[in-house]
């Protein structure tokens, strides 16, 4: 995931062009084989077992390797071997840049130093982002705000599901706590029960369209209420997985009917709205989360 942040920095600084960035991202992603495919190719598991785990990931907020081990299809050491073989996505990104003579290794090192300074990132922060482990990355993105553990868990789970169901090429920018968020489109749902939590995607539309198309496996010609509906179905599934997680911790929440808006919408709540800027293929949408019930939606 570090490559998504660093690559964007290089592009914003004019060090590489948008086209070069996209080319390198595609090249590095193409060199990275999915873990299930690798496990089948290595003869560690059958295609049916890999499909079974892919299906299970629709209902469980767990990584492929963790489910495979829990079902006895892979051992811990096989998962470790496969992860090594799968390769480090940042190294693949660097390799793709060097192979294309876009930057040398020395230049990349210098730019990494400048990036860390510009973003005030420590070596530990960079290691956390490079790990690709959402649970380690989220605390780095939350350093500007104080939020409750339940919201932190929700952001981490949502990030995993965006990567799993929507697009691996996404990044989350610094999370902030704000008074209000406005957008031309909104797909939202309230969780009610032991906790009351407002959740929603607020955006210009292009990112919502990407979410909608990936989830519904359908192409949308225009951004309208159907796009918002499909994006909200993804949110509903995401919230279902979150409700399952809470239920395992003896916390009961129910999902209320979706809130679909294809007209300018604003959510307000004094210093209580958690805004998570998400970029999917460089299109921006905010994941908005709000605890308790003081918010107002206009």
């Amino acid at each position, binding site marked *: 995931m570090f490559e998504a942040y660093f690559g964007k920095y290089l592009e914003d600084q004019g060090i590489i062009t948008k086209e070069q960035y996209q080319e390198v991202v595609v090249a590095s992603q193409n060199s990275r084989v999915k873990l299930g495919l690798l496990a089948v190719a290595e003869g560690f598991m059958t295609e049916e077992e890999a499909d079974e785990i892919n*299906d299970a990931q*629709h*209902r469980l907020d767990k990584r492929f390797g963790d489910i495979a081990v829990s079902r006895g299809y892979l051992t811990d050491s096989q998962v470790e071997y496969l992860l090594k073989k799968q390769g480090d996505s940042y190294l693949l990104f660097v390799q793709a840049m060097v192979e294309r003579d876009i930057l040398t290794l020395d230049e990349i090192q210098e730019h990494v130093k400048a990036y860390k300074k510009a973003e005030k990132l420590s070596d530990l922060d960079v290691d956390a982002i490079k790990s690709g482990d959402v649970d380690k990355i989220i605390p780095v993105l939350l350093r500007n705000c104080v939020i409750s553990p339940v919201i932190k868990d929700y952001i981490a789970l949502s990030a995993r599901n965006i990567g799993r*169901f929507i697009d691996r090429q996404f990044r989350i920018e610094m999370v902030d706590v704000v008074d209000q968020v406005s957008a031309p489109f909104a797909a939202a749902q309230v969780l009610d029960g032991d906790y009351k939590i407002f959740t929603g995607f607020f955006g210009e539309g292009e990112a919502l369209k990407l979410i*909608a198309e990936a*989830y*519904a*496996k*359908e192409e949308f010609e225009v951004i309208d209420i*159907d796009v918002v*509906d*499909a994006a*909200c*179905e993804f949110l*509903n*599934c995401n*919230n*279902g*997985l*979150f*409700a*399952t*997680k*809470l*239920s395992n911790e003896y916390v*009961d*929440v*129910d*999902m*209320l*009917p*979706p809130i679909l808006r294809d007209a300018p919408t604003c959510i307000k709540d004094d210093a209580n709205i958690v805004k998570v800027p998400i970029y999917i293929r460089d299109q921006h949408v905010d994941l908005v989360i709000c605890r308790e019930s003081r918010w107002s939606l206009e």
Partner: protein
Amino acid sequence: MAKVLIVDDSRTSRKILKGILESEGYDVIGEATNGQEGYDKYAELKPDVVTMDITMPVLDGISALKKIKGDFPEAKVVMVTAAGQKTKMVEAIRSGANEFVAKPFEPENLKAVIDKVVS
């Protein structure tokens, strides 16, 4: 082939469900966007099976299930749930739900469930 009524407030879910069911040879004879409309269409169309979303506006899926089962005890209703709706599933079983399918839909599982209910 069995006649199916789809009750779901989400256009996306209805479209995905209809696509899968029709490709498996089922006859989707109607769609409804909330529980009340679902009840009215059940009374009018008498399908072999209903797929009923749980979370819907106007009248939720469990209330619609109770209403349909109250007036038409022979009705066969498959509840559509998202993960994490355990409490609702228990309530639906107590209210006479015949089966469950979970979102996101898996075509093979959906077919197996509908086949089981209509056989």
